[in-house]
């Protein structure tokens, strides 16, 4: 019995160890390349460990009352790790010419990754909250990492304030749910609450507070106000992490919570989530129409995408978990690729290439980058044969299967509106470049070799992954299919 939990916990343990090693390494001597490669090695090792966990965990394995390691957890851990790996590679290229302290970013990144992994494996309010905070705290530092930049500091501060508010909501929500149910374990909450007679307003209030707190993190409308500013201000690779790993962790947790507590049986919660979904889809797509800044545009697009994902979650049919898995996977890969391109075109020294107009004519100078961004934008728009279509297909499938016609209507309208701004941004890449943007297209002559390879390599990997998801999704579908979580039997303690 002692051996198995070790294997099950190995991804978490590896990342923890990497954190310590990286910290020591920084303390001994600052070396950008060494720290980056150590982090990458740790992340890659952890990724391998999740694969091992996937293959050995035939059934879910509960580790203490706090954590549960199952295929669901392994899948989302792997997703978070992939996002962290990509972010590390991109950060290396991004920070290469940065004059300040570069190494701590990797440490923060590893800590946040650990937090996310704890979240997707938690089955208890305590581990949920620990993971949540461990994910959030380093993010403040990461968002404000370029300390000499006004906008970066502003982004960090905004994120701090709103995250803190969200945490407060969540803790209060937990307290209320605990007050009525008397337990902190997800699987038991559902059963105990079901035993209560009638509708309990305190439980509903608690649920609402929890959803609000998570909604902040997922930037669902109407809790999305921080998103565009933080996306715009924070360094591009950090946003890549924030937009993917952090949201994946929160959404996976929400999914597990909803499934295990059988919250989908509660009409109040479903109504609330439906409302959030429709609002997010509309707000995200409509507000994106006016954006001329690519990072802000992607922020609004993310709002809409989490609206689509909620549709899958609400549908709750047999397809729902699978649909969420596929959607989060395709969304993460696509978003990472998009921010990867932004990172590689930008540099923290001069301004980041944020305005859509900056990208004018990129295709004629750096066709690889432009093709990747095109594919990413088409994928976000959900055009067939791209990764994003698979996700949208699943969402519509889950919706049709459970007859959520209203939500499906919202998805269709949202997608139609969304096409406009994705296409408008995409076509810029192909227009003839203006003299001002021609500069951007050139790779910086010095320092091309190693740093560009790190980010570029990551981007190529993401591009290949994105193509594979679009053209031959079968293996990925099978993975997502494996993540199914039934309502856990409450007796499954250690």
């Amino acid at each position, binding site marked *: 019995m002692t051996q198995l939990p070790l294997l099950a916990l190995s991804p978490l343990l590896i990342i923890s160890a990497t954190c310590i090693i990286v910290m020591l390494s920084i303390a001994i001597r600052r070396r950008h390349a060494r720290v980056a490669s150590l982090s990458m090695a740790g992340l890659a090792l952890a990724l391998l460990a999740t694969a091992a966990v996937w293959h050995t965990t035939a059934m879910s394995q509960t580790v203490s009352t706090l954590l549960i390691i199952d295929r669901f957890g392994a899948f989302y851990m792997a997703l978070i790790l992939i996002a962290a790996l990509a972010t590390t590679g991109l950060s290396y290229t991004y920070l290469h010419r940065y004059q300040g302290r570069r190494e701590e970013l990797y440490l923060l990144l590893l800590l946040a990754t650990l937090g996310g992994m704890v979240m997707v494996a938690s089955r208890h309010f305590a581990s949920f909250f620990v993971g949540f905070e461990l994910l959030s705290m380093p993010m403040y530092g990461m968002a404000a990492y370029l300390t000499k930049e006004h906008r970066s500091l502003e982004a960090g501060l905004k994120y701090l304030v709103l995250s803190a508010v969200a945490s407060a909501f969540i803790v209060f929500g937990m307290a209320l749910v605990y007050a009525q149910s008397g337990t902190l374990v997800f699987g038991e909450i559902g059963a105990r609450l079901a035993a209560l007679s009638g509708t309990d307003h305190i439980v509903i209030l608690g649920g609402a507070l929890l959803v609000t707190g998570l909604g902040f993190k997922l930037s669902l409308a109407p809790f999305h106000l921080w998103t565009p500013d933080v996306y715009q201000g924070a360094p591009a690779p950090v946003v890549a992490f924030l937009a993917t790993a952090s949201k994946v962790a929160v959404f996976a947790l929400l999914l597990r919570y909803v499934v295990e507590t059988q919250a989908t049986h509660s009409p109040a919660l479903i109504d609330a989530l439906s409302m959030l979904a429709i609002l997010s889809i509309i707000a995200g797509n409509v507000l994106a129409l006016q954006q001329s800044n690519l990072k802000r545009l992607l922020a609004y697009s993310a709002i809409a995408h989490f609206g689509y994902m909620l549709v899958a979650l609400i549908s709750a049919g047999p397809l729902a978990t699978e649909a969420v898995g596929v959607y989060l996977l395709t969304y993460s890969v696509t978003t990472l690729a998009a921010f990867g391109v932004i990172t590689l075109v930008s540099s923290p020294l001069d301004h980041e290439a944020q305005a859509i107009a900056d990208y004018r004519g990129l295709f*004629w100078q750096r066709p690889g980058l432009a093709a990747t961004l095109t594919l990413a934008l*088409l994928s976000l728009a959900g*055009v*067939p*044969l791209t990764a994003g279509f698979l996700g949208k*297909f699943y969402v*519509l*499938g889950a919706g*049709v*299967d459970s007859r959520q016609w209203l939500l*499906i209507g919202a*998805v*269709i*309208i949202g*997608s*139609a509106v969304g*096409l*406009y701004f994705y*296409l*408008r941004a995409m*076509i810029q890449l*192909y*227009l*003839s470049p203006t003299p001002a943007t021609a500069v951007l297209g050139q790779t910086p002559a010095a320092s091309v070799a190693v740093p560009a390879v790190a980010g570029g390599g990551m981007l190529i990997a993401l591009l290949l992954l994105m193509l594979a998801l679009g053209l*031959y*999704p*079968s293996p990925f*579908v*099978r993975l997502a*299919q494996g993540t199914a979580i039934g309502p856990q039997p409450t007796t499954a303690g250690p």
Partner: protein
Amino acid sequence: MILLSLLLVPLIGGLLCWGLQRTDVGYARHIALGTMAVVLALSVGLWLTGDYSQTLLPSAQASGHWVQQFSVPWIPRLGIRFSLGLDGLSLLLVALTGLLGMLAVACSWREIESNAGFFYMNVLWNLAGVIGVFLATDLFVFFLFWEVMLVPMFFLIALWGHDIPGGRPRLYAAIKFFIFTQSAGLVMLVAILALVFVHYHTSGVLTFGYGELLATPLESGTAWWIMLGFCLAFAVKLPVVPFHSWLPDAHSQAPTAGSVILAGLLLKTAAYGFLRYVLPLFPVAAAQLAPIAMGLGVLGIVYGAICAFGQNDTKRLVAYTSISHMGFILLGVFAGNELALQGVIMQILAHGISAAGLFILCGELQERLETRDLRKMGGLWGRFATLPQFGLFFILASLGLPGLGNFLGEFLILLGTFKAHPLMAMAGTVGLVLSAVYSLVLMQRTFYGKASSTQAIADLDRREFAILGTLAAVMIWLGLYPRPFFVVSRAPMQALERLYAPEANRPEASSTVRVDP
């Protein structure tokens, strides 16, 4: 395998064109032309060697099967197979794609100066998407190609299109085109999913296969809604009148090759969709929809013709005539007897040829005069040697001169419709009169009348002459000896009639007039 190669050849050819852009654009042009020639040759080869007396739909003699098919598992979890199939209907349309594809490449030989390699890649990939639509026999694959062909077309309009002075920018037209067709496509996707889930819940098999889904038992209410989802996508693409507003914009701003493909092929994918999916999958519901659909068809015929009459821009004018001609197709499809359906096939082919001819002529006039404004034309007959004669030919073809393909198509459609719905046929006939009016007006305003100058303008060169000559020859062939075409499309159309006609309100006089050879 040969079906797969029909798809792969243009895809690979497109990549080659893009790759060759930096070295030599001339190669890219020749490769693009060669690629489409291969597609045409393959389809003609299939035509000559295959036996097209079969289609998947069961006929009177035998349970059906495809003439050629190709199928490999793609996403087994969702029951999706990459399957292609060919029968007479798809063959004719693929061959048309090969022919018009070659001409679209040829007609942009000199028009496209910038980034020609990338241009040809978009043309070829667009055509690959069109071929995919005609061949797909899995609804997921069909939807995929249906949407995928939009992206290259979007690029063609947005990057190489024309900005009309005083009009909207071409990006507006491109985005409008994309949003209209894609969002209607999403509705169709929902309909496809609904159909698949209904099939899954009744049979326990999750599949997107066309053949399997044909057998889905549907309650009439469900069938109605699912069919409307399909119909919306096809109606936007055809276009049927309330959904047509993207077409004139897209046409007037697209480059010539884009217009040729748009009018000649993309609109036909919608006609194909009605024939391949709406009628066979939902025969009962389609029969209920028939009066409305035919009414919209007539509305389109009249409305398109009247709008065409009022245009000052040559390409917009031709675009509106397309709307009018597509109205006949809608009329014929929902009349649903063999006569009308064979007419629909003929109309698809003939309109593909005549619209391509007219758009190429518009493009050539624009290259020479640097305007498409009819108010600035007139009296051109004397200033060219051969261009106006071709103009006259295609305009006459378009108005339905007997002996040319369009006449045959419209005549058969009206005959067939008269048997099913005499009133609709009578109303549709008005379109013939109106088409004569706008055609002759177009002729008058461009070529006749007072010339603004007597200076001669560069006439057609050998390449342009060959393009227009080919189109004219095919048009005459269609009009005078249509038998080979009817033979190929007979089996699918007969099968459709068998499936649909019991529901349609059909008098028994049906067997008196046949298109039998």
